[in-house]
């Protein structure tokens, strides 16, 4: 089978996910609702208590916002992989598995589709930036798109890895709750990771989301706060974040494709 045909298969799987997503208005709204809820409740609720961020220069809502964007990307990415489990239960997966295309292409198409959909959710969240008084230049937006896409691809691969080995929706939701919550809470989305106990610092270092939240925050707040304040928020240089994120992506993608290719 030619590589052009395999590429077509990746495109087909991707296109299906994108069309399905675009038709599912409730899913788009639900996926937006949760992050906005977090942003409003925690932002408004905690802002008075946390007023000394960046020497008072940065309000908590603006600090939280990049984390919430990452959250929207994370949850959409992982939940898009749930469609594999869904398709297994409702038969469509069979149609794909019996087609004369390699399972590697099917898995890659799934990752591509999930990443696109998650990126789209991230972009929708990004539209709130002006409301929060965060100025954005076209160059910033371009870099943010790349960072969100990389985060989305990494997290979708993680989702596909779980979904490939999961037979039931219940099992998948268990994993989501056990894995996604700590991944989200420890990523630095909610609180600065500087000055936390060593054990938490180490857990955060092992959390792939950390390397998504950190560069998104740096780029997003670039023109919102002074360089001095930005330096206190920075965990790693953006280049380091990107390299680590790519490493995590590969770490999830390769076994995900392998696990998917082995399913009967």
């Amino acid at each position, binding site marked *: *089978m030619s590589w052009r*045909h395999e590429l*077509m298969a990746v495109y*087909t799987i991707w296109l299906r996910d994108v*069309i399905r997503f675009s038709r599912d208005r409730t899913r788009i709204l639900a996926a937006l609702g949760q992050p906005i809820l977090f942003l409003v409740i925690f932002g408004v609720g905690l802002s008075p208590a946390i007023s000394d961020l960046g020497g008072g220069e940065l309000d908590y809502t603006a600090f939280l916002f990049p984390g919430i964007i990452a959250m929207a990307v994370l949850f959409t990415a992982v939940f898009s992989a749930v469609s594999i489990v869904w398709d297994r239960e409702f*038969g469509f*997966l*069979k*149609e794909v598995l019996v087609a*004369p295309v390699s399972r590697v292409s099917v898995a890659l198409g799934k990752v591509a589709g999930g990443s696109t959909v998650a990126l789209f959710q991230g972009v929708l969240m990004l539209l709130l930036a002006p409301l929060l008084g965060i100025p954005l230049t076209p160059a910033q937006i371009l870099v943010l798109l790349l960072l969100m896409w990389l985060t989305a691809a990494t997290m979708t691969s993680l989702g596909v890895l779980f979904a490939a080995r999961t037979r039931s929706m219940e099992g998948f939701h268990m994993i989501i709750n056990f894995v996604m919550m700590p991944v989200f809470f420890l990523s630095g989305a909610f609180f600065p990771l500087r000055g936390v106990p060593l054990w938490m610092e180490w857990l955060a270092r092992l959390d792939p989301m950390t390397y998504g939240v950190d560069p998104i925050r740096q780029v997003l707040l670039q023109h919102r706060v002074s360089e001095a304040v930005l330096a206190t928020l920075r965990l790693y240089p953006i280049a380091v974040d990107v390299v680590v994120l790519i490493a995590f992506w590969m770490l999830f993608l390769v076994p995900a494709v392998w696990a998917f290719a082995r399913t009967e």
Partner: protein
Amino acid sequence: MKAIEARDLVRRFGDLIAVNGVTFDVEQGEIFGFLGPNGAGKTTTINMLCTLLRPTAGTARVAGYDVCTQPAAVRRSIGLVFQDPSLDEQLTAWENLRFHAMLYGMQRSDFERRAQELLAMVELADRTHDLVRTFSGGMKRRLEIVRGLLHVPRVLFLDEPTLGLDPQTRRHIWDYIFRLREKENVTIFLTTHYMEEAEHADRIAIIDHGRIIALDTPENLKATVGGDVIHVRTSDPTRAVERLRTRLQVEPRVVDGVVMVELPQGERMVPQVVQVLSNGDPPLEVQSISLRRPTLEDVFIKLTGRAIRDEGADSMARMRMAVRSRRRH
């Protein structure tokens, strides 16, 4: 070249032997039926033939390609309609077909022409751009058949193509299957547990507990049942069997409380059966009596000693009865 050649196919799931040494050939252009009760190994056999499952032992060639060593070539040569619906309900009929065409590497112009042609044949042309979610069960199944045929396969597998459909829709599906065979000369391999439907096949393999216990044309299979079949309901089946055996020298059997006798020229024997049962000590009441040409059901009963249909339903009913009687005590 044969459309399908299966040789000693075996599939185990742990301790369970789902398919236990199955051998058969299917000719090009034939409608070949796999008939058997639920759990007999029909779907497992299909899954092995279409490369979704690896055989534990044995070999099979489909359209001339080995299912173990040339799975990609097999996949390109076959179409499949699964037992459970496998359409994407969020997409339109046309989108479902287009994705299929893309996965099978069809040229766009070929796809469009063929999709329109097939949709017209199964009378779905006016629903082409509707979401599949809005389709009835019969329409979905028709669309799946179209999809299975889109890439011009040499062999079309239909796993219980009429399961869960009402009788009228089932007849329709069969009309389409016949028309397809006529127009496309495609080989059709289907499984069913509906006896009446298996009669439509050119040849039938009867499968039970993972083994083929008979393989022939429906006519030849039915001819193995001696003549006609008389069904008698009486007040005392056990005594009725004994009396028929001694007085008429026949071998009746009891299935679900009904006494069944195979007799040549059955219509002339009906009065005698009634007489033998009602004149005797004690006289047995004949509640009903019927005569019919043998069906594949009778073939299955003759081969296995039990009825094929509603095995599940029967055991469910029995369980319910047991629960009820326990409650009463």
